């Protein structure tokens, strides 16, 4: 059974059609990549799955449940966690406190939340930063904090919005390895990514969006060789990285 199904989704902002008649499904345990040029509608799609926006029409179904009318906090409680493209750390709190906020979604007790948060930090090899304030982290660590916080909510489906952006080349393989380990824990990943190398090595399936519609879907090889996809954007971008 698909963990996530998106059916006939539409969303426009004023006259701009951001997502048009979009269908896709994600199977349990998959790592699915969502790619497309800037403005293709990737983040809009994310925002609808995470219920930050409500679609104009169409449905988002998570584990058989229609998410229509739900709020982001309902969706998170159901098991969908997300990270933000522009990271949103709680700047005046330490890393540990940031992650504890996520862990509190499954427990009301501070000591349990602290324990869970420390587990996550250890898993992400981030524990030495636990007492650093959110506004004192490097951009790469902000990304890791977003991931840690999302994981602390113990999701079934993790939506990652451009986690690789802003990382230097030496940091990327490490994060990819971490993401694979996340998947090995039984968490399904849906990733929006501009870094083609990362997408190609990480994802098992790729969906390419163009002007709010699905252009191509398939294995990384298939998408990489698709003439339409290359024409739309992959060609130059992939050649340069």
């Amino acid at each position, binding site marked *: 059974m698909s963990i996530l199904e998106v059916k006939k989704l539409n969303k426009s902002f004023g006259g701009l059609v951001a997502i048009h008649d979009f269908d896709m499904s994600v199977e349990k345990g998959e790592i699915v990549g969502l790619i497309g040029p800037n403005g293709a509608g990737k983040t809009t799609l994310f925002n609808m799955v*995470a219920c*930050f926006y409500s679609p104009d029409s169409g449905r988002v179904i998570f584990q058989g449940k229609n998410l229509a009318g739900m*709020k*982001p*906090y309902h969706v*998170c*409680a159901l098991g969908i*966690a*997300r990270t*933000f493209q522009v990271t*949103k*750390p*709680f*700047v*005046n*709190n*330490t890393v*540990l*406190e940031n992650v*504890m*906020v*996520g862990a*509190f*979604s499954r427990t*009301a*007790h*501070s000591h349990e*939340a602290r324990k869970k948060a420390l587990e996550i930090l250890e898993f992400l090899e981030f524990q030495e930063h*636990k*007492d650093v*304030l*959110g506004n004192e982290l490097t951009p790469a660590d902000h990304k890791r904090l977003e991931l840690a*916080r*999302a994981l*602390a*909510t113990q999701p079934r489906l993790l939506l990652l919005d451009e986690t690789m952006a802003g990382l230097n080349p030496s940091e990327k393989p490490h994060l990819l390895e971490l993401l694979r380990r996340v998947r090995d824990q039984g968490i399904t990943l849906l990733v929006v990514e501009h870094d083609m190398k990362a997408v190609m090595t990480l994802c098992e399936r790729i969906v390419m969006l163009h002007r709010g519609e699905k252009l191509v879907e398939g294995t990384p090889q298939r998408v990489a060789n698709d003439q339409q996809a290359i024409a739309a954007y992959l060609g130059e971008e992939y050649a340069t990285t």
Partner: protein
Amino acid sequence: MMEKKENGKMARKKIPLSGWAAGAVLALFLIVPLFIHNPYLLHIFVLVFLFAYLGTAWSLVGMAGQLSLGHAALIGIGGYVSTLMFMEWGVTPWLGMIVGGILCGIIGVIIGYPTFRLRGPYFALTTIAFAEILRIYVENTEEGPLGIPLRGGMGLLVPLKGDAPGVFQFSTKEPYYYIALLMMLAAIGLSFFINRWRMGYYLAAIRSDQDAAEALAINSTKYKLIAMAISCVLTALGGTFYAQYFRYINPERAMGLSMSIEIALVGVVGGWQTVLGPTIGSILLSPSGELVRAYLGGTYAGLHLCLYGLLLMVVILFLPNGINGPLIRALKRLEAKMWGPKMIEKVTAPETAKEDKP
């Protein structure tokens, strides 16, 4: 190895200098009436405690990132409810206090429910509007609905019963002194625990970034409403104390904008969004305001307001998060100097760092 792992715990057990300072101030407050008998000086202490209490209650909404500029309305409602119940039905203000508290909790939720969904200044504007509408209504209403004798701008006089603890009346200052101190400590205690519970983490998350908070399963409206309700209940209880202490309550003073601003000022100057900030703010502001009013009020009317304004400008320019944070950091530096470099490591421990979270 042990030492590194136990670092956080040790910092908790080892009381920091700021903790000792707070303890010393508290001990001083407890024994002040033993050697100060001057009613006017005791009155100043009562004001310090009352405004520390009100500021702490107010700052609970601040912890959710919301600015209320209408908390005076809750003092007015709390004071009026308990006083009217006493005047009309002979119900003791101790009971009327609870009725006023519950009523204000409900009012807080009614104000917060529509406005917490909006972002921006709408909550602050709504609180001002609510307090001002209430004040103008009461000032111009001799007899409210159901024949409630509001007495308009004249206000209400609490019927005097002499030294009667059963109806919250005492002939000396000392009982009021200790009641106010107890209320202040209770509010600080509540704020302290809320900060350490899930609720405190959630409020910090909401004021830092509401979208990120919602993505982490936090129903931000719900938690803001809980904070607002607690804050309103506490403020209403303070209103009853106000009425019983002054034996008089009127709309201009108890519901007016200047009262709302005084409460907010105590919080902002001390450090709103921190546990001890409003108390420090009140210790600084209440006596100076009172003394200036007493000694210079006759010659230069309104001077205390100018001083308040000046102080507010200085604080916002140089200490935008209040005096609390820099004060604690200064104490920590002093501590590090006193006990040598060994302490520095513990100074940055998370438990103590949380204290000055702006």
